[in-house]
């Protein structure tokens, strides 16, 4: 057999097509989410002072470091540079009060990165959102520290946050039948709450950026927030208050939209988001806790594989109908 000689003895790569890939890698995606969280971070620094920044930094550094060393020790492929741990760190900080002790915040990071993410196999393999799980664990383990909300005092007017300045969140006030702050204050962030859940405006600004960049689809946030509004209307509550108070906007835009722990197909996303909205409102109106967003998302995260199954079957039936 006369094989034609490869004149230049060049080594060529032989691979299956396509031979091009998009620049929008996992790292790019996570980077975009981190960028989208920046307005909320800025708002939290504005309302709660520099401690918001140091708390966020502590969470980011612990999450990324834990991801790095866990992979190192277990000789896994290094995933610390894909920025997913950075996003988790940011979200954990955003879900706790601004005066939350650093040591407890680090406990939250251990729960998120080691227990929820890495023990289940790392990125893409976790059943529930690491940041949501961390928040729920912190909330039930350290209820005092998790609910002593500092009163927002717009920057440059105060010396930052001290323990003496804690007060109830709008949802606490509502639960106890007190007077709630006006909707505009809730929208801008001039009310108590977790670090970055306070300013709906800043969160929506960041989310708008993600929509424009086509990083996330609007199904989950719209259906989640829509369900909350509808439920509040039917229950005779102020819909605007329930939308803007607490963690609905942060949860709907940034936590429930986590690719890994929410359904992939639009129909599944719809079921998931409506479920999130229903459970949130059920807890708020009929439960012991004033806030139910994290429990709702956690619960729907656990149901996601089942929802995924149903929506995949529905798609297969669409193929059948089309004769595909």
């Amino acid at each position, binding site marked *: *057999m*006369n*094989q*034609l*000689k*490869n*004149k*230049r003895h*060049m*080594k*060529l*790569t*032989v*691979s*299956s*097509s*396509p*031979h*091009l*890939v*998009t620049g*929008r*890698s*996992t790292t*790019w*995606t996570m980077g975009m989410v981190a960028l989208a969280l920046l307005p909320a971070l800025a708002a939290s620094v504005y309302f709660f002072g520099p401690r918001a920044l140091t708390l966020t930094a502590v969470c980011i550094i612990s999450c990324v470091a834990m991801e790095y060393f866990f992979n190192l020790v277990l000789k896994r*492929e290094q*995933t610390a540079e*894909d920025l997913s741990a950075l996003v988790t760190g940011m979200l954990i900080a955003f879900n706790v009060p601004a005066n939350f002790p650093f040591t407890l915040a680090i406990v939250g990071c251990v729960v998120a990165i080691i227990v929820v993410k890495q023990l289940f*196999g*790392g*990125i*893409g*393999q976790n059943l529930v959102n690491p940041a949501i799980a961390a928040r729920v664990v912190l909330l039930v383990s350290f209820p005092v520290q998790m609910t002593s909300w500092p009163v927002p005092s717009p920057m440059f007017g105060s010396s930052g946050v001290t323990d003496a300045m804690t007060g109830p969140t709008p949802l606490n006030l509502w639960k106890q039948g007190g007077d709630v702050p006006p909707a505009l204050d809730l929208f801008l962030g001039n009310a108590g709450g977790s670090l970055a859940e306070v300013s709906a405006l800043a969160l929506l600004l960041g989310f708008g950026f993600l929509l424009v960049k086509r990083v996330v*689809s609007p*199904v989950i946030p719209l259906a989640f927030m829509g369900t909350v509004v509808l439920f509040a209307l039917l229950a005779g509550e102020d819909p605007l208050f329930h939308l803007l108070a607490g963690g609905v906007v942060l949860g709907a835009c940034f936590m429930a939209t986590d*690719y*890994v722990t929410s359904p*992939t*197909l*639009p*129909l599944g996303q*719809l079921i998931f988001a409506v479920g999130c909205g229903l459970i949130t409102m059920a807890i708020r109106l009929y439960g012991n806790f004033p806030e139910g967003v994290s429990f709702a998302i956690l619960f729907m995260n656990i149901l996601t594989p089942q929802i995924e199954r149903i*929506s*995949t079957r*529905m*798609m*297969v*039936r*669409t*193929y059948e*109908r*089309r*004769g*595909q």
Partner: protein
Amino acid sequence: MSPFAGKLAALAGFGDKQHLRGIHVQHHKTTEEQETIAMKTPAMVYISMAQHIGVPCKPLVAEGEKVAVGQPIGDSDAYVSAPIHASVSGTVERISKIRSATGGHDTVIEIKSDRKQTPWEGIAVPQPSSHEEFVHAIRNSGLVGLGGAAFPTHVKYNPKNLDQLDTLIINGAECEPFITSDYRTMMEDTEDIISGIQIVSKFLDIERVCIGIESNKPKAIELFNKIIQERELSHMMVSTLPSTYPQGAERVLIYETTGRTMNAGVLPAELGVLVSNIATIAFVGQYFRTGMPLVSKKLTVDGTAVKKPANLKVPIGTPLSDLAEACGGYRGKPEKIIMGGPMMGRTVFSDSVPVLKNNNAILFFTGKQAVIPADTHCIRCGRCFYACPFDLMPFAMARAYDHREISELERLRVMQCMECGSCSFVCPARIPLSFMNKIGKELVKEAKSRT
């Protein structure tokens, strides 16, 4: 309806339309304004006997024999096959075997060129008077689908339901990045395209012709619109297609131009449609003008590993290394050589393999261009689903493939996949989804053949 709403509708069960939105891939059409240059006749050509779908040809010439340009040197008795002609004049040095891009071994006829390019004395302009004679002439020309499929054209032009054909679609989408040879054909061989269309629609008795061109080629759209208007060719029309990948895929093109939905395993003719690539139809026009069979090909040579990317007209059988030399030589060492476009093209083992009839581009990649980053875990973002022109779920198929669940692969319609590569392209985790589907299809076929 927005693509997203369309998807929702499809999922909710009241949408029957597929979305076919396509994906945005950087065009890289750097050679589009470079006129085609006829390449210097190479010293040697290596003409493969397997340049089409179907039965490979058997050599008609012996070692040492003199041949002229256009002389048949390979043919087969099989119906699905196309004869092969000498692309240079000279002497048959050897008949040997080479490893083909698909991994098999193909017979090649090695011809040493005398650089005179003497045409064969048997060349004659065909004068068919019936559909049967027309099909016979097309067979003699050695024409195969030049868009890449290399399906013998005489078979395509002789469908069982000839009476039911109503539309001829000319594929000028050229949706693959880098390739501009079809665009050059549209600009340079406009008359051959028009006469090719007239001839095919006359003999196949088709009343409607649709030329599909992507919107990133405004000059070509304008040119054809002007000709259609000036000559009152009312049966022809230009369809401006969005510049998204994969507009040029047959099933997508048919849907975009006629609204007819075609599933895998269905022939376009069954929908009353015939699709020909712009280069194929231009060759028909040229063949009925000159009588010269398919012996040369326009193709784009591009990629970071060549000094001067260009559009070349080359004799079939020219070694790829000669093309690189005609483009100023290599810049650095090529690390990946692709026959065709970067989305669906095939990589080759060596730069000494010859040009085939269906090649429309040869890309010499090096450095970053030649590397696909390593894959990471699926983050279940669903971009593969949104990218798929047929609403398939590559993420679910990849899972079924990993577990070798063949019946699940079939249920998820892996056989509908046309391997356009859109899912692999958009995957942020760089998972080779398209490749998994390719193997998944083979697994399904194998399982079926066993039962």
